[in-house]
């Protein structure tokens, strides 16, 4: 009995040695692989899903030239405009101060809003099952209304509005990501006394990859306490995001004419449908310039 045990052990030993002398060196390397945290990258490729912010911030030393356009037609069946009746453009420079902190400064042509934002990636999702199962980014933007108001009381502070968002997103698979964005908006100038100054809203956004460089996106914001003096609707967008190296393009259909965060969330006056002027064609172009080389030299 004992002899058998020993023989068994010897066979196992010999078998083991032969096994490891074979082609199983790769298994040894697997054990050597250092346990580096694998943070999920590219939950959304761009800093906007379509109309609203995504959890993405740009890495340190990256400058983005961001141009957002919304085109729409007036209800008049006949018009003298070339291409479209109305155009709103937000031109902005957005910069990665640190890997997790971005700042942006921009101005919108149609509504005369100048805006600035700060965005900080608080928690990063980890793909290896350890750590956080989702990402959280904090976003705060301020807008300054530069329009001339003949009867606006007060001063600078009445022209300022703020939007604060907690962006929570999860990349479920390489193809599919979802984001929920609880938002708080404070508006500086009110058009009627009955209107609330502070609004609560929640945004939903998703991305589904159609190809390696193309993805389908959609976004919707629900406003808990909308403006009372005129009708507003939840901004909605569907579109595609297309990245071409340093150039990233976003095409969308939306009912939101406004582009600044507080304005499009609380002041989208038309519902989403295919009539003029409800239907807006949106086009965002982002050109990326790197000021910092990742390679040591």
């Amino acid at each position, binding site marked *: 009995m*004992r*002899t058998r*045990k*020993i023989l068994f*052990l*010897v066979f196992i*030993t*010999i078998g*083991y*040695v032969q096994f*490891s*002398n*074979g*082609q199983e*060196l*790769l298994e*040894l*390397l*697997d*054990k*050597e*692989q*250092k346990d*580096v945290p*694998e943070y*999920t*990258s*590219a939950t959304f*490729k761009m800093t906007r899903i379509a109309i609203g912010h995504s959890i993405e911030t*740009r*890495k*340190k*030393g*990256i400058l983005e030239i961001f141009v957002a356009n919304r085109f729409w037609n007036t209800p008049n069946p006949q018009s003298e405009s070339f291409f479209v009746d109305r155009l709103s453009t937000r031109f902005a420079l957005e910069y990665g101060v640190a890997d997790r902190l971005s700042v942006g400064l921009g101005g919108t042509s149609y509504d005369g809003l100048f805006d600035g934002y700060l965005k900080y990636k608080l928690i990063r999702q980890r*793909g290896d099952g350890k750590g956080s199962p989702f990402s959280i980014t904090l976003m705060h933007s301020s807008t300054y209304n530069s329009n001339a108001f003949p009867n606006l009381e007060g001063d600078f502070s009445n022209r300022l509005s703020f939007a604060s968002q907690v962006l929570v997103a999860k990349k479920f*698979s*390489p193809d599919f990501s979802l984001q929920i964005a609880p938002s708080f908006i404070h508006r500086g100038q009110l058009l009627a006394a009955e209107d609330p100054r502070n609004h609560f809203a929640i945004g939903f956004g998703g991305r589904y990859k159609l190809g*390696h*460089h193309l993805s389908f996106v959609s976004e919707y914001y629900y406003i808990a306490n909308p403006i009372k003096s005129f009708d507003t609707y939840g901004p909605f967008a569907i579109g595609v995001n297309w*990245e*071409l*190296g*340093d150039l990233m393009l976003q095409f969308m259909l939306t009912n939101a004419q406004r582009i600044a965060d507080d304005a499009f969330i609380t002041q989208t006056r038309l519902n989403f449908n295919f009539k003029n002027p409800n239907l807006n064609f949106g086009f965002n172009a982002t050109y*990326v310039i*790197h000021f*910092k*080389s*990742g*390679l040591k030299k």
Partner: protein
Amino acid sequence: MIRLIMAFILLGVLGQQENENKIIARQGQISFFSYTSVENIKAENNQVLSIIDLENSTIAVSMLMSAFVFEKALMREHFNESYVESDIYPKATFEGSIVNYDPALSGVQTKIVKGIFSMHGVKKELEIKAKIEKNRGHFIVSGTFEALVKDYDIKIPPLLAGNIADSISVDFRFEYEPYEN
């Protein structure tokens, strides 16, 4: 009982022998270059693992694709997300053997390394010319080879075809030390 102990000792001795002839590189370097008239792209990975069993001249290499560092941070994101799909295929590996290699000889030898390279879910048989340097028990393996992008099922959109070369030049350099574990 004594025989049982003997068997364990035998197991221990064999176990040690098995590792004695292995050498490992824990900070191997692999870099690749793509040269086109539009853009030059370079990426480096300094955390490549490699192990050689000197007894039978077998070699294995393993690297994390996400550890490649690019000049442009966004390029790294594109590389992992849209080209090599690191979420699905996190590693690239090579297993093979050094043909006609005699580890006893010191100095520089140039040998063919033959084996299977696996990346982006594609396995490909490669023959790579490598320089093997032995200097007082230390081994350095280095070389260059060309890899065709289309061989590894990596799709480049037509609009970017001019920015990325069809053939990528790959440099590698591993410094080995005795493997103890």
